[in-house]
Every structure is written in structure tokens, then in C-alpha cells.
């Protein structure tokens, strides 16, 4: 089809004729001070806390401090474009970010703008970044499991959909690795993942996105990035933006998982903003409302009741500690807000136990009720054996003669520690996890040398994959009964016969 120039001009003419010119009235104020990502505005008497403010050149800001004689405001964008004496306009809107299915597979900044060069994000829906968490009646207790694919977590620290489970540990102890493995494990499920990177190096984020892409996990994932190069205001905003994107799925009856990596850096960026806004500093120079900063964010993770569609938003916040100190300000705060924590120990990591989960200090306060019955039938024994081992191990270092029973417990403990090790990017199905724990519990591995445990484990998985697909599917449906156990024992014997 060809359009004549005449036609175009007539269309344009009609459009212009039909245009209704209107008058915009906006309240304004004058910028009296600007710098470090902060602006102070004189005037603007009726501005609301959290309202968006427009500066010349389209730069946006958000009013945080409403003082007697000025409005303190954080700036999302280039501070350099704003001068003293500029006119700032009220917008009467709370900051919104785009939400929807179109966000999946994208890497965006804290304002929801694409960073991955894949073009515009075509979405109609926008939602405010700061939303009030749901009330009591709108929720229900967690009841479906969220499988991380990691043996140590799914067995001993089970996580339910809608739960908030903290991942805490020193730097370089595999915190991000757990989060990434959890995302990878959602491939066959209906869980949508959101990864919020706060104050991280851009290179780490790029590496992570590559890993997700290589494993086909980007299709169901949104990555929100406020890297270390971004202003403190964007870093402060990013978890709330990510949470809003996740809530969209939850409110539509779907299941979403959000990872905040990490909230220590988030607290630091908020401290920076607060000090610049001259709010009084408290403990460790954090402002008085740093608890509320994280509690209002994590409260938004929830499991909806069935009338509201039964959707869920699970949160895995990450906190970095210094020298395994759980009693610092931010760690204790976040521990008290969450429904449990996965504690990663530096010592375990360096002694080769990876993931370096300290089972004694890790708990899941609500996930137990969501754990599969089949898994539950093997974990009780696992926990007890591990706890006994931890006690005896210290004891056995004295080198004194040990009786038979103690020695047996030590052998069992070592095998259990061995099977809980897991390499990165290799999440396991619940059935396989249950099976290997069952095998160790029943003592099949006691005779195997420590160095060979891994080989037996691999052999078991390949046997299960090739010969017992159907059996595995049936196995996890219910508690392990005697009949199933017998069949499992047979398989164990069969695998061991090869060694």
C-alpha cells in the first residue's frame, strides 16, 4: 500500500485541528542546594513524602525529607544537570515502575528501564514502588515447597513459597551461588525469579546474567541492577522496584521468587543518603529507621489466601557479615524479620565443605510444613546423625580409643557430610535428594571409602535416570512406606554391586 503525501498532510491537519491545548498548573519550588545525589528545595509546601519531583531536563527525584523550611530530595539521574536556582515541579505521583510478563528475560535498572540493549520493554502496566504489605486476612501460612535443588537446604532448612529466608555469611562463602542455583532449579517449575543486584560490581552481574542465559534461566527471570557505579538513590530504590515487579505475579495468582543481593549494601546506601539529608545517625551511623527500611520490604513477601488466587512471593535476602559476626546491627535486624536463616561459614567453605552451610546455626521457622512427606521421612534421622557427629568429632580429636558404637557414628557422620556437598550449577530433583540421603541413612555408604562416595552418588543418579524414571515419580508422592523402602534398598544394593 502506498500513501500519498497529500493524504498524510490531511491526516496531520485533522489531528492538529482536533488537538486540545490545555493549561498545566503545577506547584513549584526553587532548588537551593544540590550535590551528592541530593537536592534541597525551598517552597513546595504541599509536597507528599515519597512524591516524585521533576527537575529541568526531565531529571526525576523523590521527596524524602519534609522539613520546616525545605524539602530534601534524592535524585535519580544526573545531578550535574541541576543547578542552584532551578525550578522543581511537583508531579503528585508516587514513583512507578513497569510490571508484567514483558519484563521477563530482561536486565533493567531500578526505574525499570532496560540495560541489556534488547530494545524497549512493551508493557502497559505500571505499579508504585512503595506499596503497603498485605494485611493478616489476605494471607495464609506457607504450604507449597520451594525447591532450591540443594541437598543441604531442601532436607534440613526447607523453604516454603511465600517464606522469607535469609542467606547470611562472610564475603566469598557462596551466598550468591545458592541464589543462582535456586534460580536454575526453577526451570521446570512455574516459579518466576527476580534477582536484584545492589551495589555489586558490573562484571559480577554480567557473569551472573551469562550463567543464567547459558542455562536457559533468563526466560523466567528479571534482573534488576543498581551496580556500585550507580548513585546511592538508585541502589536504595532497587529492591523496592524488584519487589513491585514480583508482586505483580503474586497478585495474579502466580508464584515468584525474589533475591536481594545484598541488603548490607542496601543499608549502606541508605545510610549514605540519610547522612547527606542530615538525619541524625544512630548505631553504626545508620539512621533510626533502618529497621523499617528492611521490615517493610520483606513484609511484602507473602502467600496469598485462596480467594485472592493463592499466589506467592518468596524472598531470599542476602546479608554479608564481617568475621562471622551475626550480632552486628544489620544482621540481627534482618534475622529478626525473616522466617529463618541459612548461615554460611567461612571455616567450612575453606575446609572444602561446599555449600558451606552450618546446619547448627541455620533454621527455617515455617518451611517444615511445606516440605514433601517423602523428604520428611529421611531428614529426621539425618539431623540427629549430624548433630551427634558434630559433638563426637570434637571429642575424637583427643585420639583416645573409641568404642565401636562411637566409631560407627563417626563413619556415618563423615559420609553424611560428604553427600551434602554439592557443586555449583547442578541442582538436584527432590527424588534424587531423598534417595541419596536414604542411602546414607541406611548405612549403605559406611563401607565405601570417603573418596569414593562421590562416584557412588553419580552412579546412583545415572542408574536412576536410565532405569527408574517412573519409580522416582511415584516415590515422592507420599511418605516412604515399607514397600517403597524395600524397592529403594534393592536399587542401593544394585548400585553398590558395581564397586
Amino acid at each position, binding site marked *: 500500500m502506498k500513501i500519498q503525501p497529500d493524504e498524510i498532510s490531511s491526516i496531520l491537519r485533522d489531528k492538529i485541528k482536533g*488537538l486540545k491545548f490545555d*493549561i498545566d*498548573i503545577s506547584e513549584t519550588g526553587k532548588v537551593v*542546594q544540590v550535590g551528592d545525589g541530593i537536592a534541597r528545595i525551598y517552597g513546595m*509546601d504541599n509536597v507528599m513524602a515519597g512524591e516524585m519531583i521533576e527537575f529541568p531536563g526531565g531529571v526525576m527525584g523523590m521527596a524524602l525529607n519534609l522539613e520546616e523550611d525545605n524539602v530534601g530530595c534524592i535524585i535519580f539521574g544526573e545531578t550535574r544537570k541541576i543547578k542552584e536556582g532551578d525550578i522543581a*515541579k511537583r508531579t503528585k505521583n508516587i514513583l512507578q515502575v513497569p510490571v508484567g510478563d514483558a519484563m521477563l528475560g530482561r536486565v533493567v535498572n531500578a526505574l525499570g528501564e532496560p540495560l541489556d540493549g534488547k530494545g524497549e520493554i512493551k508493557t502497559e502496566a505500571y505499579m508504585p514502588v512503595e506499596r503497603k504489605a498485605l494485611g493478616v486476612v489476605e494471607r495464609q501460612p506457607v504450604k507449597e515447597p520451594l525447591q532450591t535443588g540443594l541437598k543441604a537446604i531442601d532436607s534440613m532448612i526447607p523453604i516454603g513459597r511465600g517464606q522469607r529466608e535469609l542467606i547470611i555469611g562472610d564475603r566469598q562463602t557462596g551466598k550468591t551461588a545458592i541464589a543462582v542455583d535456586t534460580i536454575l532449579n526453577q526451570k521446570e517449575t512455574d516459579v518466576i525469579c527476580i534477582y536484584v543486584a545492589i551495589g555489586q560490581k558490573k562484571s559480577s552481574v554480567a557473569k551472573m546474567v551469562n550463567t543464567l542465559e547459558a542455562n536457559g534461566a533468563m526466560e523466567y527471570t528479571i534482573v534488576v541492577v543498581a551496580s556500585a557505579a550507580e548513585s546511592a538513590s538508585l541502589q536504595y530504590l532497587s529492591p523496592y522496584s524488584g519487589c513491585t515487579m514480583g508482586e505483580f505475579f503474586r497478585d495474579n495468582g502466580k508464584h515468584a521468587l525474589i533475591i536481594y543481593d545484598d541488603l548490607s549494601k542496601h543499608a549502606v546506601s541508605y545510610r549514605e543518603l540519610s547522612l547527606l539529608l542530615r538525619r541524625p545517625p544512630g548505631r553504626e551511623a545508620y539512621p533510626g529507621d533502618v529497621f523499617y527500611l528492611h521490615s517493610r520490604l520483606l513484609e511484602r513477601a507473602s502467600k496469598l489466601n485462596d480467594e485472592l488466587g493463592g499466589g506467592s512471593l518468596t524472598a531470599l535476602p542476602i546479608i554479608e557479615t564481617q568475621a562471622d559476626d551475626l550480632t552486628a546491627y544489620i544482621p540481627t535486624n534482618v534475622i529478626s524479620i525473616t522466617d529463618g536463616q541459612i548461615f554460611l561459614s567461612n571455616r567450612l567453605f575453606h575446609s572444602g565443605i561446599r555449600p558451606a552451610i552450618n546446619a547448627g546455626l541455620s533454621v527455617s521457622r515455617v518451611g517444615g510444613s511445606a516440605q514433601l512427606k517423602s523428604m520428611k521421612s529421611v531428614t529426621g534421622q539425618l539431623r540427629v546423625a549430624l548433630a551427634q557427629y558434630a559433638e563426637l568429632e570434637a571429642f575424637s580429636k583427643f585420639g583416645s580409643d573409641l568404642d565401636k558404637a562411637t566409631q560407627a557414628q563417626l563413619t556415618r557422620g563423615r559420609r553424611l557430610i560428604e553427600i551434602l556437598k554439592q557443586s555449583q550449577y547442578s541442582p538436584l530433583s527432590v527424588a534424587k535428594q531423598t534417595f541419596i540421603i536414604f542411602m546414607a541413612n541406611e548405612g549403605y555408604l559406611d563401607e565405601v571409602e570417603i573418596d569414593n562416595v562421590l562416584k557412588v552418588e553419580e552412579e546412583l543418579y545415572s542408574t536412576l535416570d536410565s532405569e527408574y524414571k517412573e519409580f522416582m515419580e511415584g516415590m515422592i508422592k507420599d511418605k516412604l512406606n515399607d514397600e517403597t523402602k524395600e524397592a529403594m534398598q534393592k536399587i542401593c544394593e544394585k548400585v553398590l554391586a558395581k564397586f
Partner: protein
Amino acid sequence: MKDILVAQRYSKAIMSDLKENEINSILADVELMSRSIQKEPKLVDFVNSYLYPIDKRLEIALELTRKLENSKLWENLFSILIKKHRFNIISVILKDLENKIFSEKKQIKVKLVVAHELPKDVLDSISNKLKEILEKDVVLNINIEPEILGGFVATTDSLLIDGSIKNNLVKLLKVKSKKKK
């Protein structure tokens, strides 16, 4: 920031002592002085500087007040400001005083920007429209800026009323690109 608060204190004090019939003459003084200070910005620096002896500075400041109608009042104000080393905020005080007088007279000063010279009846209709929005008598200060293409932009201290063609076109662009999304 602090300057504004301090200046407000001074202007409030002046206003509280003002009689009904003095208002117009004070306003005339304020306008005259603002204009002369704008023309000679160095003067403020000089009068507020510790580099020169205080009696010299006082003398010059008093010279300034001679031509004003309410010279006694200004004399007092200037000598207090100089002694307290606050003469640098004189223009802020004048500005605030002007605002206060206007609001006392139920008027408001509006800076009106138009694209080109407008005939009287158009200006009147704009002025009426503004009066309706602001609910006060408006005193227009007209500037011509062809960049706004047409229509008008009116600014007061706390409001921006934008009825320009430029703004409407910008908005149109925004709507278009949102729709494309």
C-alpha cells in the same frame, strides 16, 4: 536557606509596624532599591565588607536611603544590618518584603512569558484567566521568549502555569512514545 529564614524575620518585623497608608510608598521604595542594587551588585559587597571602616560603610548606606520616601525606616534597617554584618541578605529581605506587601494588598506578582508581543485584549483575557486560577489580582511582568512557540507560561513563587504550545507538544510526544510501548 538560612538567609531566607533570617530575611523573613526582618521583613516580618517591618510589616508588623506598617500603617495602612504607608504600604504604597514602602512598595515604591522597595522597587527602587531592588533596581539600584541589581544595577550595582558590588555595592552590597562593599557595604558588607570588613575591609573598610564601619563609619565609611554606614555613611554610604545612609547616602542610599536619602532618596527614599521612608528614609528613617531604611536608615534604621541598614545600620542594624551593617552592625550585625548581615547586609548581604538585603536583596532577599527586599524580595520577601515585596511578596508580603503584595499579599497584603491581595495581589500577586506574576511573571508572564509569551512568544511575541500580544494585543491588549488577549493580554486581558490571559490576565483574567490567571486571576481565576490564583484567586488574586495579578500584577503582570511580561517577558518575550519566542522558544515557547505560542500560548503563555506564567510563574509565581510557588506555581507554574504552563499553557504554552511547546509544553503541549512535549506532552504529545510523551503520550505517543508511551502508546508505542
